[in-house]
């Protein structure tokens, strides 16, 4: 039984969530097809831009070879001799590693052999090559040892939008030939620095055997399917995402994340010689935007969109050394199943928002809260731990489902309101029917039943001729027909506007005192024994304010009055005088029926229909009902109620 109920509930959820599951499926499919890659990469850039400021990386010093010196002399290429002198000066300050991000085409003049000699004799001197088209050969004439250990490739592979987000660590140029493995310039610099200064050697990864590791820091390896990437052709070899170093603290003069040492200052020794270069990573290259290769990035937060190869290398080296030594986060990614689980969870959250709140507004607020939570968690994970979550697809699934189910909930709410209205209307109809039945009963009671009782009494008393019986029966016949007619009319009119009194059908819209008068006439016209002996019928009805009485109340007053008169007719045997008045007395309206007949037999309140109606009226009108013997004889019957 419980199992069946559970199955039912699950099925119901499936049906209800069908649309939402469709949306989740569609988003997952879009992501698998790569349609969301662009958005996810842009979001990654935005997260990096938003990140808090960082201090300058003091381990790295950049030397811009193209700086115009004090003489104002500018050259299109760099003399070998100038470069060799510069390197020698730098080396004299005992740096950990010196990188020369220059290729043969950048250099000119004599003295290439001196540069080659420097390379041979200083293993901490590193230079570059480019190993992907267009290829750039390393310096010609270097030994194999230098080629293997001091030349790294400085290629970066770009994303479809032209932005640089990834760096190479290494690449096996020819598949199946491990000996063709080349290290990138940035990796080589970081490796030499860590080894020389901190005694940390490069090792294979533990979690991912193919990744690289320094001490406890494993550098996450990208695959063409990592994170937001989908079949990204440019991801091969060993690549990782660059966690660009953020803007400097506002106290720093420059907004650049790395120290810059102009060659002129270097030559003149105008800098803090004690430790500015000692045991540091020095990269020599060009920061001249008109000459050097430029890269585009949306992740920089120093109001720049472009950076030169030299700066890019600095970011790449810096992120590795900072990660190893400072625990600065590297960008990493959940395994693929976890990413999709996250997307599905937030998609489901969108569906469940409908069930978890009552009003549209609170659902909307909840949706806003959950999406803010997702944003905060995604940003927090990235900023604090470098974790790149599938924020874009999860957010899409949440918001789309949220809005779909918000709309559904709202329309079902409207539907519920309609159903409620309908129920109310049905209840009103039911009440109306109840009233009609009561009204029918009243009419029968005050009409044909009275006639019948009268007839019975006369027959029992043997006081009636066959002729009169015939007449009475014919009256009865008419009365019953009139009731039928009256009920039919009631059913036809929307409001129960009429009341049947004897043979008259009275409109309840008529002023109450006129109704009383007509009831009086109708009732007194009937052949009750109490009426037969009457000599005097004194009656007057003063107008009465009835704007606060509804039709039901008026109907009851009429029924009560009719019943009171009928009582005189039935019981006031031998009465000669009947006084019926409706009068304003101070703040009350008094409706009185006084006869001088035989009086009440017992003073106990009888439980007749008239008394019942009178009691109902007493409470409805805050009135007072009195029925007692009158002096010297007869009955005094009064209903009085407060006027407005």
């Amino acid at each position, binding site marked *: 039984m419980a199992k069946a109920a559970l199955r039912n509930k699950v099925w119901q959820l499936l049906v209800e969530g069908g649309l939402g599951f469709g949306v989740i499926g569609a988003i997952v499919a879009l992501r698998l097809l790569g349609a969301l890659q662009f958005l996810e990469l842009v979001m990654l850039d935005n997260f990096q831009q938003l990140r808090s400021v960082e201090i300058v990386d003091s381990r790295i010093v950049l030397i811009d070879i193209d700086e115009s010196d004090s003489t104002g002399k500018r050259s299109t290429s760099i003399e070998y001799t100038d470069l060799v002198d510069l390197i020698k000066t730098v080396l004299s300050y005992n740096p950990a590693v010196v990188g020369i991000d220059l290729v043969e085409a950048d250099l000119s003049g004599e003295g290439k052999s001196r540069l080659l000699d420097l390379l041979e004799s200083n293993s901490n001197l590193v230079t570059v090559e480019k190993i992907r088209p267009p290829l750039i050969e390393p310096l010609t004439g270097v030994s194999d040892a230098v080629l293997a250990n001091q030349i790294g490739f400085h290629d970066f592979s770009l994303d479809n939008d032209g932005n640089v987000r990834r760096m190479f660590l290494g690449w096996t140029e020819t598949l199946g030939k491990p000996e063709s493995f080349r290290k990138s310039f940035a990796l080589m610099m970081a490796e030499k620095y860590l080894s020389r200064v901190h005694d940390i050697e490069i090792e294979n990864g533990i979690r991912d055997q193919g990744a690289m590791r320094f001490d406890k820091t494993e550098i996450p390896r990208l695959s063409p399917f990592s994170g937001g990437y989908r079949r990204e052709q440019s991801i091969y070899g060993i690549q990782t995402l660059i966690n660009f170093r953020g803007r400097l603290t506002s106290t720093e003069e420059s907004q650049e994340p790395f120290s810059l040492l102009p060659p002129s200052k270097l030559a003149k020794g105008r800098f803090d010689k004690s430790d500015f270069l000692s045991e540091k990573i020095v990269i020599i290259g060009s920061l001249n935007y008109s000459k050097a290769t430029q890269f585009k990035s949306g992740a920089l937060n120093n109001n720049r969109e472009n950076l030169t190869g030299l700066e890019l290398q600095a970011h790449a080296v810096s992120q590795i050394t900072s990660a190893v030594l400072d625990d600065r986060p590297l960008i990493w990614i959940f395994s693929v199943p976890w990413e999709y689980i996250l997307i599905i969870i937030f998609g489901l959250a969108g569906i469940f928002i409908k069930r978890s709140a009552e009003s549209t507004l609170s659902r909307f607020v909840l949706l806003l809260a959950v999406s803010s939570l997702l944003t905060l968690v995604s940003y927090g994970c990235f900023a604090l731990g470098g974790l790149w979550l599938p924020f874009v697809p999860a957010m899409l699934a949440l918001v789309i489902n949220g809005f779909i189910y918000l709309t559904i909930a709202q329309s079902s709410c409207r539907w519920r309101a309609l159903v409620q209205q309908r129920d109310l209307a049905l209840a009103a109809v039911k009440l109306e029917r109840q009233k009609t039945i009561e009204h029918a009963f009243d009419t029968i009671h005050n009409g044909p039943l009275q006639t019948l009782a009268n007839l019975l009494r006369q027959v029992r008393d043997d006081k009636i001729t066959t002729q009169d019986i015939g007449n009475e029966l014919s009256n009865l016949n008419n009365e019953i027909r009139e009731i039928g007619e009256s009920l039919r009319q009631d059913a036809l009119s929307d409001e129960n506007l009429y009341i049947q009194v004897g043979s008259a059908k009275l409109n309840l819209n*008529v002023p109450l*005192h*006129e109704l009383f*008068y*007509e009831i009086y*006439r109708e009732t*007194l*016209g009937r052949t009750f024994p109490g*009426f*037969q*002996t*009457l*000599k*005097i*019928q*004194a*009656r*007057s*009805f003063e107008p009465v304010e009835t704007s606060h009485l509804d039709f039901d109340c008026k109907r009851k007053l009429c029924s009560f009055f009719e019943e009171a008169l009928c009582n005189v007719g039935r019981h006031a045997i031998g009465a*000669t005088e*009947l*006084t019926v*008045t409706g009068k304003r007395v101070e703040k009350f309206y008094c409706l009185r029926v006084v006869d001088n007949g035989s009086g009440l037999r017992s003073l106990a309140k009888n439980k007749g229909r008239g008394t019942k109606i009178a009691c109902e009226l007493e409470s409805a009108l805050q009135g007072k009902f009195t029925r007692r013997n009158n002096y010297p004889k007869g009955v005094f019957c009064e209903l009085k109620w407060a006027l407005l």
Partner: protein
Amino acid sequence: MSSNLLDRPSSARILLVDDHPTTLGGTIVILRQHYQEIDILVATTAEEIFSSLDKSESDLVILDLSIPERAEETARTETGISALRQIMLQYPAQNIAILSTYTKSLIRVRPEIDGHQGGFTVIDKTQSTQKLLTRVDAALNGFSDTREIKGFQPGVEMKPEWLEVLKLAFQEGLQDKEIARRIGVQTATVRHYWTKLYDVLDIYPSEERQDGKNIRTRAEISARQKGLID
């Protein structure tokens, strides 16, 4: 017919209300034959009644109950009844004669008619010309004749005040002035009660020959016969 209890007015201004041209014409002919000097105003809608009454007083309003509110509208008894109510409210001493085929509908306004101080007679259109003229006469003289709308029940139906007047006059032998003092009303009101009492007691001065009968004495006899006083 020439000499009854009433004076035949030599001249009168009568407002005749009827929307039916043929009936209207007939009534006018009858009235003109009967009265030497007569000024007949005609109204065919409820609206016209009041514009006419507002302009100048009429000695008598002869009203058909089935009239339209305005020209071009349908004639309804309801309209006539509410016009009658309005007349009685605005002109409490106006003499009124109802000329209608459906006099029963007046039962609804019976309490107002009882309180109306002017003459008030009811004429069924099917009645003879003779009866019509006597009742017009009665109304012009401020008398009441509502036989047509009396109930069928036994006993005499009246307002409690009238009964009081009857008892004070015939059981205690008081004059109108003293009766007025006793029940706290104007002497004129007591006289107005008397005209209503005559109607209740089936005394119709316009129909009875002036042969030395005292109307109060006739009333006392009738009241005793009907058992209203001991």
